[in-house]
C-alpha cells in the first residue's frame, strides 16, 4: 500500500509536471504550483471515487499456488474443482484427477463436462469405478433412461471388476424401463444375493429395488380417462387393486413384485397388521431366494419401527 502510494504520487508528479512545465516561469509565481495542485486534486478525487487501494491484485498463478498449498477439504466446491483443473493444467495425464473432477462436475449437474472429464480419464487409464460413474452420468444426462452408451460403459466396468454393484443394478433398471419386469427382478435379486452383508450398497440397492418393483402397474392413459369421468373414486380403485393382488397371492400365481405391491399398499393404507401378514406370506413363498429375503427382512424391520412409533 505504501508502495502504491509512492507510485501514484510519482506518476501524478511526472504527468502534471510535464503538462504544467511551460508555466513554470510565469508570473504570478504561485500560478504553476497551484495548477499542479489542482491537477493532482482532481485526479485524486476522481481516483478515490470507487478506488480500493487496500485490495491486492490476485493474478491467477498466485491464486492457483495458494489453492495448491491449501488442504482441499478446506476449500469450497468451486475452488476444489478449480484446484483439480490446476493440477490438470500442469499435468494433463493425471487420470485420477480427471476422474475426481468428473465426479465433482457430475455432482453439480454439469453432465456434459463430467462425461468429457471421465472420458479423458479413461483414455489414460481404464478404471472400473470411473466407467461406472461415466455410465451413471449418461443416465443422469438422459433424465434417468439407461441408454446404450450407459450400458456399454457398465458392461466394460463389470468386465473389469465383477464385484462392482452399480452395473448389475442399472442392467436391471434397463430391463425394467423396457417393460421386462421379470428380467429386472431376476437381475436385481441375484445382485442383492451376491453382495456382502457389510456392503452399504446392499441396503441402498434393496431399498431402490423395493421402490421400483412395488410401483403399481397401471396404464397411465386408463388412469387419466378414469380420473376424468364423473364417478371417479380413488378409494374404490385402490380397494379393487388390493382385491386383485390378494386374489393372485391366494391363488399362488403372484410374482415377487405382486407381493411387494401388496405389502406396500397395505402399509400405505395404515394397515400394518395386514402388511405383516402379506410380508409373512412372501417370506414363506420366497424362502429360498436369498436376494428376496434381504429385501423382505429390511421391510420387516421398517414395518416394525412404524408400529413401534404408532404406539
Amino acid at each position, binding site marked *: 500500500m505504501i508502495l502504491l502510494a509512492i507510485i501514484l504520487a510519482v506518476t501524478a508528479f511526472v504527468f502534471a509536471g510535464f503538462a504544467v512545465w511551460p508555466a513554470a516561469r510565469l508570473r504570478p509565481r504561485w500560478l504553476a504550483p497551484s495548477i499542479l495542485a489542482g491537477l493532482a486534486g482532481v485526479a485524486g478525487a476522481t481516483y478515490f471515487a470507487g478506488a480500493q487501494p487496500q485490495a491486492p491484485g490476485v493474478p491467477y498463478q498466485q*491464486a492457483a499456488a495458494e489453492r495448491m498449498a491449501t488442504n482441499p477439504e478446506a476449500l469450497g466446491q468451486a475452488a476444489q474443482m478449480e484446484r483439480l483443473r490446476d493440477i490438470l493444467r500442469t499435468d494433463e495425464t493425471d487420470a485420477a484427477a480427471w476422474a475426481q473432477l468428473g465426479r465433482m462436475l457430475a455432482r453439480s449437474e454439469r453432465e456434459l463436462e463430467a462425461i468429457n472429464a471421465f472420458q479423458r480419464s479413461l483414455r489414460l487409464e481404464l478404471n472400473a469405478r470411473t466407467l461406472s460413474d461415466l455410465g451413471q452420468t449418461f443416465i443422469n444426462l438422459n433424465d434417468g433412461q439407461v441408454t446404450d452408451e450407459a450400458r456399454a460403459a457398465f458392461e466394460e466396468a463389470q468386465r473389469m471388476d465383477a464385484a462392482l454393484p452399480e452395473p448389475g443394478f442399472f442392467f436391471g433398471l434397463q430391463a425394467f424401463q423396457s417393460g421386462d419386469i421379470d428380467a429386472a427382478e431376476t437381475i436385481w435379486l441375484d445382485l442383492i444375493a451376491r453382495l456382502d452383508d457389510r456392503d452399504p450398497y446392499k441396503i441402498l440397492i434393496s431399498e431402490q429395488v423395493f421402490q421400483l418393483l412395488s410401483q403399481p402397474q397401471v396404464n397411465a392413459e386408463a388412469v387419466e380417462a378414469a380420473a376424468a369421468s364423473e364417478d371417479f373414486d380413488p378409494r374404490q380403485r385402490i380397494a379393487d387393486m388390493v382385491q386383485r393382488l390378494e386374489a393372485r397371492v391366494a391363488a399362488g400365481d403372484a410374482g415377487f413384485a405382486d407381493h411387494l405391491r401388496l405389502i406396500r399398499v397395505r402399509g400405505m393404507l395404515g394397515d400394518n397388521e395386514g402388511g405383516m401378514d402379506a410380508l409373512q406370506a412372501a417370506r414363506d413363498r420366497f424362502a429360498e431366494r436369498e436376494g428376496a429375503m434381504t429385501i423382505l427382512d429390511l421391510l420387516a424391520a421398517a414395518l416394525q419401527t412404524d408400529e413401534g412409533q404408532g404406539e
Partner: protein
Amino acid sequence: MIAEIGRFLVALAFALSILQLLSGWRAASTGSAPAMRIAARSAYGALAAAVIAFGLLIILFLQSDFSVAYVAGHSHVDKPLFYKIAAAWGGHEGSMLLWCVMLVGVGAALARFALRQDEQLKNRAVSIQGGLQILFLGFLAFASNPFDRLLDVPVQGADLNPILQDPALAIHPPTLYIGYVGLSAAFSLAVAGLIEGRGGRAIAAALRPWSLFAWTALTAGIALGAWWAYYELGWGGWWFWDPVENASFMPWLVAAALIHSAIATEKSGNFAGWTAFLAIMAFTMSTMGAFLVRSGVLTSVHAFALDPERGLWILGIMTILAGGGLTLFAFRSGRLGHGDGFALTSREAFIGVNNLLLAAVAGTVLFGTLYPLVMTAFGVSGVSVGAAYFNATATPFLAALLILLPIAPFLPWKKDGFSRRLAVRSTLWILPGVLAGLWAFLIEASPVAIAAAAFAGWTLAGVVTDLWYHRVLQGAAARFSLTGRVLAHAGVVAVALGAVADSTGRPETVRALAEGEQIEIPGFTLTLDGVRRADGPNYLADEARIVVENGRVSELLPQRRYYAAADTTTREVAIRSGLGGDLYVSLGEPRARDSGEIAYEVRVTFNPMVWLLGLGAIMIVLGGTSASIGRAMSRRQKGMVS
C-alpha cells in the same frame, strides 16, 4: 496494484483533459504561447496516461487477475492468448476505455498536426476536443470503470461471450471506433470554426482530411461487422437493418455526405453551413450509435448489454453534443459566408443533390430506427419496424445516387458543364446498364433489384470512363486522388451489385440428417458422412463431415461448440466460396429418431456472389486510403510553395 494504477491513470487523463480545455481556450482567446504549450502537453499527457492504462488492462487480462470485475466478467484462464488480449475491448467498460484512448489520441493529433498556419483555430479545436474528452472520460471514470474491483474474488472468470471470440470481431470494434471517434476531430474543428467566426472554406479545408480518414475506418469497421455477422451468427445474412447496424450506418451516411460537401465548400465556399452542420451531426450520430448499442432501449439481434443507467449517461452526452453544437450553429452560421454560387449542371449542384439523397437515406433510417422509441413515448410499446421498411425507403434514393454519380466527375466547378460530348458519352453507358439489368433479370431478381443493377452497370461504365478520361492528370497527388475516387465509386457499385445478387438468394433448407442421408439443393448434393468430437482448449465440439457434390466432390466441416464456462452453444459454419457464390452450411442440434438413430439438423443456403460485397468494401476502403494519401501529398506540395 496494477488495477489501482490503471484507475489512477484514467483519473489523471480526466484531470489533464480539464487542463487541456482551459488552457486551450485561453491560448485561443489571448494568443498566449505558454497556454498553447500547456494545452498541447496536457493532450499528450492524457494520451500517454490513457494508453498506459489500456496497456495495464491488457496486462491484467494476461495475468487473469479476477479481482478486477471486468476481467472476471470477460475472461477465463483457458482462453487463448489472442482472445485474452481482445477481451480487453470486448466488453462495455473496456471498449469505452478504447474509445477514450482514441478520443485523447485525436486531441493529441489535433495539437500536433492540425492547422499550423492558424494557431488560434487550432487551439480552440484542441480546447473543444478537451471538452469531449472530459465528457467521455468522466463517463468512463464514474459510470463504467474497467478497473473496478471485486472484494470477493471468484476462482475463475465467466469467459467472454463465445460468439465474440472471433478474429473479425476482435478487430471490428477498434476499427469502427477509429471511425466514430475520428469524426470527433471534424466536430471539434467545426465548432471551433463557428466560435472563431472563420469562413466556410477554412473550416472545410481543416476538417476534410480527418473526415476522410474517419469515414474510411468506419467503412472498414462496418464491413468487418457485416462479415462477422455473416459467418458467425450462422444465419447466412450480412445485413439485417437491425438498430445496432443502423447505428453505424447513419454516421457513415452523414460522413459520406460530409466528405463530398466539404470538397465543394473548400473549392468554392458553397454549402458552408451545410458542411458545418454535417460535421456536428456526424459525431453526434456516432455517439448515438454507442447509445443504441449500449443502452438496450431497442430490441436487437446484436444487443450486448442492458444497462439503462449507462444509456442515460450517453444520452446526456449526446444531448450536450447536439444541443450545444446546433445552438452554436444557429447563432454563428451567418458568419460562414456565402459561396461563389454555382450553375445547375456544375459539379457543386451534383454534390448538392448527392448530399440531399444521402441525407434522405440517413433521415429515413433514423426515423425507422427511432420510431419504436417515439411510439413508446406515446404509450404504444412494442412496435418494431421490419427490414421491408428500410429496403423500401433506402433503395430508391441509393439507386438515384447511382444514376447521378458517374456524371459528376466530368462536370466543372461552378460553371455549367453539360456538353454534347458528355451527352454522347453517358448515352454509351446505357449499354452496360442494360446488360447488368439483363443479368439481374436472368438471376430472377425482383423488379427493384433489376433497376438497381441497371443503374449500377451505368455507374460502373461511368466510373471506368472517369479513370480513362482523367488518366492524363499530372502529379502523384492528383493521381492518388483520382485512384481513390474511382476505387471508392467502383466499390459502391460492387456492393450494390452484391446486394442485388444477394436478394435473389433462396431461403435456407433445414433438415435433420442421420449418417449417410442427403440434402439436395439446386446444383448441389450434400451427404452427412459422419460426426466426430473436435474439442478445443475452452470448448467441447461436434464436427460434421459433409460431402458436397456438384460435378466435383469436396468436403465441409461445420462445428457445433459448447463453451462450458459461459454455458453457451455456438455454431461454426462451413463455407465453400466460389465465383457463383457461397455454399453455406451450419450444424444444428442433434435429435433422436424413434428408430434410435441420431439425426443432426443441417442447414444449407446458397448465397449468390457474396464476394462482390467483400470486394466492394475493400475497394471503398482502399479508395478512401488512396484519397487520403493524395490529399496529404497535395497539402505538402502547397506548403512547400507558400
